[in-house]
C-alpha cells in the first residue's frame, strides 16, 4: 500500500493511501483532533465520492477495530505533552522480510532503533510485552511503540528484503 503523507499548514496532516483495489482513501487529521476520511473514485481523482468525520475518541476506537484489536490509549489522553511524538504502529511481517526468523534480541530493536515491540500477534496467540528470546515469523503482526522517526526507521529496516 502506497501512503503519501503531506502537511496542510494551518489545518493539519493529510495521508493519502492508494489501495490494491485501485481505490484512493484520504485521511485528514486536523490539528484540533478531528479526522476526516474521504474516498475517491479511481476514474476521477479530483472530487471525493464519499466522506465522513470522526472525533478524536471515535477515531481511536475505530482504529482499534480496523487494526484488529480494540484499544483505547487512556494513558495517552492523560499525558498530553510528554507523549506528543509517541506513535504506535501495527506492522505485519511480510514473507521474505529481513526480520523473519530472527529474535527480538538479535534485531536489537531498542538498541538500534529506540523503538519498543509492545506485542506480537500471530494466528491464535498474542504475546504481550515479548522478551528478547521471542522470534519473529512472517504473517505475525508486531505492535511497535516509539517516536515517529524511531518507528519509521524500524519499519524501513524490517521491510527491506534480505540482501
Amino acid at each position, binding site marked *: 500500500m502506497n501512503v503519501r503523507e*503531506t*502537511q*496542510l*499548514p*494551518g*489545518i493539519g496532516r*493529510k495521508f*493519502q493511501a492508494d489501495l490494491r483495489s485501485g481505490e484512493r482513501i*484520504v485521511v*485528514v487529521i*486536523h490539528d484540533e483532533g478531528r479526522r*476526516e476520511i*474521504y474516498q*475517491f473514485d479511481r476514474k476521477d*481523482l*479530483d*472530487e*471525493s465520492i464519499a*466522506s465522513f468525520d470522526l472525533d478524536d475518541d471515535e477515531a481511536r476506537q475505530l482504529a482499534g477495530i480496523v487494526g484488529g484489536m480494540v484499544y483505547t490509549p487512556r494513558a495517552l489522553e492523560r499525558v498530553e505533552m510528554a507523549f506528543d511524538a509517541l506513535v504506535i504502529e501495527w506492522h505485519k511481517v511480510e514473507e521474505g522480510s529481513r526480520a523473519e526468523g530472527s529474535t527480538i534480541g538479535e534485531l536489537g530493536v531498542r538498541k538500534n532503533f529506540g523503538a519498543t515491540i509492545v506485542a506480537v500477534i500471530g494466528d491464535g496467540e498474542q504475546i504481550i510485552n515479548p522478551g528478547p528470546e521471542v522470534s519473529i515469523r512472517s504473517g505475525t503482526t508486531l505492535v511497535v511503540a516509539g517516536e515517529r522517526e524511531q518507528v519509521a526507521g524500524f519499519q524501513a529496516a524490517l521491510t527491506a528484503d534480505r540482501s
Partner: protein
Amino acid sequence: MDHLVFEVGAALVLAAVATLLANRFKFSNVPFLIIIGMVVGPHIPAIGPLDLGFEESYDLLQFLGRVGVLFLLFYLGLEFSIGRLINSGRSIAVGGSVYIGINFTLGLLFGWLAGFQLAEILIVAGIITISSSAIVAKMLVDLRRTANPETEMILGIIMFEDIFLAVYLSILSGLVLSEGGSVGGTIITMLIVLGYILLFFVLARKASPFLNRVLDIRSSETFILVVFAALFFVAGFSETLHVAEAIGALLLGLVLSETEHRQRIERLVIPFRDFFGAIFFFSFGLSIDPLTLLDAALLSVLAVVLTIAGNFVAGMIAGRNAGLSSRASANVGLTIVSRGEFSIIVASLAIGGGLSGLIQPFAALYVLILSLLGPLLTKESGRIFGLVSKAFSREKAADDASG
C-alpha cells in the same frame, strides 16, 4: 455622565450580533462587522433619540482595534515558519511566486492608472494582492475539500502570501511612516527598518535556547503576563523607530515561533485575537463615512474584476505547472480570491501615513465585495470552470473554423 462602558458594551453587542448573523449565513464575520460599524458610525445623523454615534467611546474603540491588529499580526508571526516554507516543495514555490508576481504587478498597475501617489500605489497593491487566510482555510474545511489534490497548492500559496505580507508590510510601514519625505530621510528610515527586521531574524535563529528557558513558566497567570508584556512593549518600542507597532508584534511572533512554547502561546492568543480582532473590524467600519463609498465604488468594482481575473489565471498557471487537472487548477484561483482581514490591515496603515482619504472606503468596499463574493466563487468553482472551458472551446472552434 460617563457612558464609556455602556457604549463599549453596545459596540460589543453589535459586533456579537454581526458575528451571529455571519455564522447564520456561513460567512466570515469581517464584512458584517465593517458594515455594522459603518451603519452606526458617527457619520450617520442621529435618528431622533436614537443616537449611536459612539462619540465618547470612539477613540477607545479605535485603540482596542489597534490592540486587535497587534494580536492578529502577532499570531501571523507565530504561524510563520521558515522550515515549513523550505519543506513546501518546488511546485508550491513556483505557484506562490507566480501568484504574487501576477497579482502584485496588477495591483501596482491598477494603483498607477487610478492616479495615486507612490506610497498609495504600494498600499493599494498590497490590499489587492493578499488573500484572506482565515476565509480560505474555512472554505476548504466547510466545503469538505481538504482531501482534494489542489489543497496543498492552495495552502502553500496562502503561506507564501503571508510571508510576502510580513516582509512587505515591514517595508511599507517604513515608507509610509517616514517623516519629512526627503529621499535621504526615507533611505535612512528604510535602513533602520531593515536593520531592525534583520535583528529579529537573528534573534529567531539564535535566541530560542535562551527564550525556551525564560518562558518555561508553570503558572499560566505569569506566562500570559510575560508574553503580553513582551508583545506590547516590543510593539510600542518599534513605533519609536518608525517601524509600525503591528510589525513589531509580527516580528516578535516570528521570534517566538522558533521556541518550543509556540503552541502554548498560540492557544493563549487565539481568544484575544478573535475578541480584539472583531473590535478592530468594527472600529474600521466606524471610521468610514458610508457616503464616501460612492466615490470609491467604481475603483473598488474595477479592482474586484481585476482580482478575480488575476487569481483565476495565476491559479491555472500554478496548478497546471504542478501537474493538477484543469478543473483542480481552476479551484486554486477561485479559492484564494477571497479578501479579508489582511487587506484591511494594510489599508489601516494608510491612516498613519495621512494619505489619500479614498484608500479607506476603497479598501472597505473592495473587501466587502470579495469577502462575500469570494466564498461564492469558491463554492461554485465547478460550474464556473464549466462555463469558462465551454467559452474557450467555442473560441477555439471558431479559430479553427476561420483559420
